């Protein structure tokens, strides 16, 4: 029942878009019926032959940004979480930085790393880093200290305690943070590309928008959305696997 209503709603929105799009100035808005041919031209590489290269570049930027964010976030989170004093000193400072909208750092990154891929990777890294770090901190707080004490009492070394007690106990929180981190790394790279780049999906979107090729713009946005939704679906799959494993 709800599914049917949802589908009807979706159809209504599309129909409304079609009607409004036909009535509107074609430079400003295009109906879905005009987007489909544009999407076909795009996917057949007629309108933007460099689509595969751009997609690949954006994916590479995301992979690098996320990889760095995970590595640094885990390292930083465990460094802050394992020592009480260190955590109490630097934890609030990290939280304060988290209260700043991340985009304020982007101009500095652009100045520092230039207009090419490096500034996008740096921004995606920055956005992904915080949720990973904060998830590690939250996860460590969740570990029951008695479990650690018991493991120690039975003669487990620090490595054993870490791998067999702490990681399983905090895995679920950690995986959630890793998923949020991926979503934010993806957003960071795409925001960076749209705010200024010469290559990548963001550059193509800006190009289409700048030339008022609105149908191409919508098609490019749809392709980028598939990339974003796909990455999140992958992360959610991993999350469910991990959940089953911990249960």
């Amino acid at each position, binding site marked *: 029942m709800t599914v049917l209503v949802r589908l009807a709603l979706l159809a209504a929105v599309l129909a409304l878009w079609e009607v409004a799009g036909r009535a509107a100035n074609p430079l400003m808005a295009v109906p879905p019926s005009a987007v489909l041919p544009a999407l076909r031209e795009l996917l057949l590489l007629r309108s933007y032959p460099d689509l595969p290269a751009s997609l690949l570049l954006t994916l590479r930027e995301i992979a690098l940004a996320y990889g760095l964010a995970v590595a640094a976030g885990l390292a930083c989170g465990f460094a802050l979480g394992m020592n009480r004093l260190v955590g109490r*000193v630097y934890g609030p400072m990290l939280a304060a930085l988290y209260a700043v909208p991340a985009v304020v750092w982007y101009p500095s990154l652009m100045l520092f790393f230039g207009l090419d891929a490096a500034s996008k990777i740096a921004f995606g890294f920055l956005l992904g880093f915080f949720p990973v770090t904060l998830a590690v901190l939250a996860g460590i707080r969740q570990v029951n200290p008695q479990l650690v004490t018991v493991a120690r009492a039975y003669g487990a070394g620090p490595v054993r305690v870490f791998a067999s007690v702490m990681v399983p106990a905090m895995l679920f929180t950690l995986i959630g943070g890793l998923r949020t981190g991926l979503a934010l790394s993806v957003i960071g790279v795409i925001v960076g590309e749209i705010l200024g780049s010469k290559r990548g999906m963001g550059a193509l979107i800006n190009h289409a928008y700048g030339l008022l090729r609105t149908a191409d713009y919508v098609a490019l946005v749809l392709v980028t959305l598939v990339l974003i939704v796909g990455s999140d679906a992958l992360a959610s799959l991993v999350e469910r696997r991990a959940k089953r494993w911990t249960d």
Partner: protein
Amino acid sequence: MTLRVRALQVVSIAAMLAAWETAARAGWVDPLFVPAPSAVVRALAKIGGQALAGLADTLGKTAVAYVLSVVLGVAAGLFVGSMRLLREVLNPFVIALYGIPKILVLPWIVLVLGFGAAPAIFYGTIHGLFPILVLVMGAVRDVDRTLVTVARSYGATTWQLYWKVLLPAIVPSVLAGMRLGVVFCLLGVLVVEMFAGVRGMGYVMSAFANGFQAPELFAATALVSAASIAIVLALDHLNEKLSHWRG
């Protein structure tokens, strides 16, 4: 302990600034990209007037977007959250809209609304609206059914039910949403100013970055960050006061 933590925080920041200053003076980093803190302070004095005007502009737009997000978010959340069918139908759409990067529609928003305050306010509002909407919808769903039943059986009108039962019951979630929303609104406004601004801090920072004016850029970034942290701390403080008052 608290005193020691505070002291260590101050010492860490001082040490970092000292190391940075030394590195810049000794020429270990290129002052074109990483200016010394003293140069940043001088730049802050120099750009003070311009930056404060930009900040006022940005914060004004953010305030409008924020009021719109809170009012629309709470109203829509109450309405949708309290109707079971509506909530179940719309929930996945709301979550999806919350999750997808809004930057993809930014070019189109600018295309339709032009340059100036309108796209910034609109984009800031859609950034702030969704976290509030999602939280309020969830909170209304979880309101104790007994409260509603009792109010109904004592003859409460629909208006009284919303105003006297549901709204007070969801205050904590509204406050949590308000705290999240303000950073999102500021983020949205800054992104638009960077993408297509002619005024405001986002524009000012982009202009400094494009002009390779690193000291001025760092000063402007510090100013925006400080303003953002101050706003969040003020909201936290207000939150605490209100929770004391609620008891």
